[in-house]
């Protein structure tokens, strides 16, 4: 929205408010005697997010990740990673939300960039890899080892995909991406 702060209905009396200095309870300046939370705008320096398709000018078709639009509008700089780079995307071609290039600083081609998360319509979350991450995060040494192997180890995204994305080249990769509790 680009406004410095916004009133919101909610959160009064919650413990969350006690820990946040970017939300206060304030009186309605137009009278009526009611109070509500007023939240300060977030203005990230850089937003980095993964989308379905982008073109070389920075026009973006978000696919399922429609809330990326909000990130792009709020942030001073925007870097987008995309499953696929195509010749030209206009608002008419976009699936899900469209982000115009004027908001985007850089585009990176990164197939399987959501891994181990999923990308609706392309590949499902990699549950085994997720489980590996959860197990590794139980203590600091195992998490450090995980980071060494999966994050700092691969010299490039291509190497990460080759080593850790199962079925990366297989058409049998599961496509379903249903959000569900386990």
């Amino acid at each position, binding site marked *: 929205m680009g406004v410095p702060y916004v009133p919101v209905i*909610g959160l009064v*009396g*919650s413990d969350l408010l006690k820990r946040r200095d970017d939300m206060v309870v304030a009186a309605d300046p137009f009278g009526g005697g009611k*109070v509500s939370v007023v939240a300060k705008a977030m203005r990230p320096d850089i937003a980095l997010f993964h989308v379905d398709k982008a073109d070389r000018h920075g026009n973006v078709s978000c696919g399922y990740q429609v*809330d990326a639009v909000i990130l792009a509008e709020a942030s001073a700089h925007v870097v987008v990673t995309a499953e696929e780079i195509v010749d030209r995307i206009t608002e008419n071609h976009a699936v*899900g939300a469209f982000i115009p290039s004027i908001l985007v600083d850089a585009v990176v081609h990164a197939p399987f960039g959501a891994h181990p998360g999923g990308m609706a319509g392309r590949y499902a979350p990699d549950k085994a890899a997720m489980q590996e991450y959860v197990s590794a995060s139980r203590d600091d040494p195992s998490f450090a080892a995980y980071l060494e192997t999966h994050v700092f180890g691969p010299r490039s995204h291509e190497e990460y995909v080759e080593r850790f994305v199962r079925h990366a080249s297989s058409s049998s990769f599961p496509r379903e991406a249903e*959000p*569900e*509790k386990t």
Partner: protein
Amino acid sequence: MERAEARDYNDDELMVVLMSREVRDGEVSACGALSQIPAAALLLAKELHAPDAELIILNTVFRPFGTSRQFHFFAQRGELGLFFASGVQIDRHGNYNLHQLGRDHDRPDVRFPGGYGGGLIYYAARRTVLFRTEHTRRSFVEQVDYISAAGATPPEVLRLGGPSKAITPKAIFEFDASAGCLRLESIHSPYSFEDVRENTGFELGVTEAAATKLPTTGELSTLRGAVRQKMIETNTYGGWAERMLGAASI
């Protein structure tokens, strides 16, 4: 404690049916992400008594909006009639906790992902029905360890609605807005008043309670037929629907 006889429905199905009865025809009713039981309840209500209900089931095909911003302002405008919410802990005052366990807020014993928009919707939807699949003293407590959203607020707080009920596999509580607390409304047979008292961490506020009207064969057959099929076809918690709806009892 005497063990209940096997019923011909499971706890999830019981919750779905009881929650579906809270949906009003012509109203907008919604639930969040990771909400298979409320999603089924909304779809069941639409098949049965609320054909003109508008449903919002986030992260599924039953989602009229593109962005969460649109959903946020829709709720802030007061257009949500009913919302389903849950908490790890729910207390007597209708506060719920989705954040963390342990009294020391700086050193929690367990941390959870927290609430997404629930801490706003709890104040903006006209009615929120709380639900919890575990009815024990650790989930229904006198005072939550951390208030993610408050059940009652002072009159000067801008608020469009609040909790109306809490539904569990054992009982239904109603929220008394003037007293600012939950009160036992009805008990699902075969559970007794004693069962509910033993498993609730706060005073029930009554000395007896009516028997809940249990799921009818009509409700169950629609749930296991049309609703189950719709959930599978539309990939709306289809895996859960396949597994739980019509599955063996208890």
